[in-house]
């Protein structure tokens, strides 16, 4: 079989997805046998970002204008483009910046802003069509393999779209929201991590971002009833989901309240 051409692109992020990808854990030989790493900066010098690519993986939020241009070029060059990791999928942590006046945020960091050219942080699909989302921070291992094998076999990838709660119950964890009164984001968060936080005795902080059509205002109401302050509720929905419609609904509701 001809190897498929793979490109891995990093924008504004911690590069954890590349790092994670570089060790596709137990599958290094298989991945190398099936893919040509045409471009992946963390692993290889002398790569070319020009393509064409059979599969492009994009990590990081888009926070500078040149990234948009390059991203569009990559999209044109790629048969399949997957957003990998919460920054690329939902804007992730970098999107917190946009919850307050951005210039203030920038001024807190740099005295001289003349060489800083940041634009409002967004997920990758704000600019280009995305063929699939490998969610999570770090991304779910299973979803990464699903993306890779789907491209290899020419089928549509299948990613979970339900709540963390389902995974949590499948694991048999006693619910931390109900039993321990912890403000768990699991009910509105997309599955994929295997309900890691509740399994470690803590509330989910939604590092996988909102699930499709999450009813975040209803959860915000529940948090309020639990005695959680308005600001704390807003923070819950803006840690990873600041750039998502689903979580903005909760924030708006709390503001209007």
């Amino acid at each position: 079989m001809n190897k498929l051409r793979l490109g891995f692109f990093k924008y504004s992020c911690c590069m954890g997805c590349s790092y994670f990808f570089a060790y596709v854990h137990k599958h290094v030989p298989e991945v190398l046998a099936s893919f040509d790493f045409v471009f992946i900066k963390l692993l290889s010098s002398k790569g070319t970002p020009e393509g064409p690519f059979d599969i492009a993986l994009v990590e990081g939020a888009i926070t500078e204008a040149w990234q948009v241009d390059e991203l569009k070029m990559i999209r044109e060059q790629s048969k399949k483009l997957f957003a990998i990791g919460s920054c690329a999928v939902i804007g992730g942590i970098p999107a917190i910046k946009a919850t307050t006046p951005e210039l203030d945020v920038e001024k807190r960091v740099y005295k001289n802003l003349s060489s800083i050219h940041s634009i409002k942080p967004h997920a990758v699909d704000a600019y280009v069509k995305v063929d699939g989302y490998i969610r999570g921070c770090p991304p779910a291992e299973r979803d990464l393999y699903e993306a890779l094998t789907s491209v290899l076999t020419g089928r549509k990838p299948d990613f979970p779209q339900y709540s963390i709660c389902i995974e949590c119950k499948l694991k048999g964890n006693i619910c931390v929201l109900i039993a321990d009164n912890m403000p768990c984001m699991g009910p509105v968060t997309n599955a994929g991590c295997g309900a890691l936080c509740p399994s470690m005795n803590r509330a989910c902080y939604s590092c996988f971002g909102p699930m499709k059509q999450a009813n975040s205002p209803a959860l915000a109401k529940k948090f309020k009833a639990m005695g959680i302050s308005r600001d704390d509720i807003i923070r819950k929905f803006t840690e990873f989901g600041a750039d998502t419609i689903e979580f903005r609904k909760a924030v708006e509701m709390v503001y209007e309240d």
Partner: protein
Amino acid sequence: MTGERTFQKFKRLIPKKAFLLWLDSLRKDYKLIGPVKTGNHAVFKEVDSSEELFMEYGTTMLSPGKLFLYKPNEELFRFAMSGKITIDEIAPIAEKQIIIGVHPCDVNAILYLDRTFLGTFRDPHYEARRKNTLIISLNCTRVSENCFCSSVGAGPFLHAASGYDMLLTDFESEYLVEIKSRKAEELFGLEGRSAGRDEMRLKAEKEKSMKSKFKKAINVSGLDNIFAENMDHPIWQQTAEDKCLSCANCVMVCPTCFCYDLRDEMSMDLKTVTRYRCFDACQDIMFAEVHGGNFRQRRAARLRQFVTHKLDQTNQYGVFGTVGCGRCITWCPTGIDLTEITREIQKFKS
């Protein structure tokens, strides 16, 4: 379950200690599963000795039936993909097991699961485990906050004629042990005292006093066609938008919810595909999606499916889908309560 010769359904009083010792003596042939205390909760799990059991538990989050008979996750087939594809059918593993302390609602829930998995098409995995499992039920001694089993005839004392092996009733220092299957009759060697009319009267009194303790109830006789006639009652939309998170906790903890998904997972070398089965939930937005539409796109429709499947839709199996364990109420993050929804609709009618 299968054609059994008639056996003797005897009733005896056995000191609790002796009973538990007998249980331990079975451990060489059986896995012993029962309620165990963890923190403020009880969970059903395998124990090494009857001493770990916590028989006074109120209710567990997950039911024994959906942990040890119908498994949350089960590998069914493995496909070898190189060259001509071959299918390897995973043989049912059915270690012999005893589940002790199963409350009446959960026994009824198992009987409900039987209708799905031992119907026209029998699931070999479920069937094998069911055959190899001894179910020892325990009549309830405590009514938890959200229990309403007495309203739907599923508790607090068990009245099902068959489908389980033994029934215990707490008689302070003793158990009233009732033998309900041939398997149990053969295994049970303890003599104890034979229980007579007095004991049965005492049992009936206990049941009566238990029944008076329920805080939650539902009027099933008033249900009739009420759901079908009130499909668009505002309560659905209102509850769905205000409260329902579509998180599916209700479905996951429900001991009678049987829905599943079949999933394929391909190994990275593309040489093997594993097909497995795992619980699915009608609250998941993808659950009823087809090309060109989604039959339950609206959250209200999904919520209504759950509630009506439990309280209406009895045409399916001829019994209620709920056993009144109250789990979906307890573990719903926003406390959505199907008995309240029902009351609301009944109010509307009258």
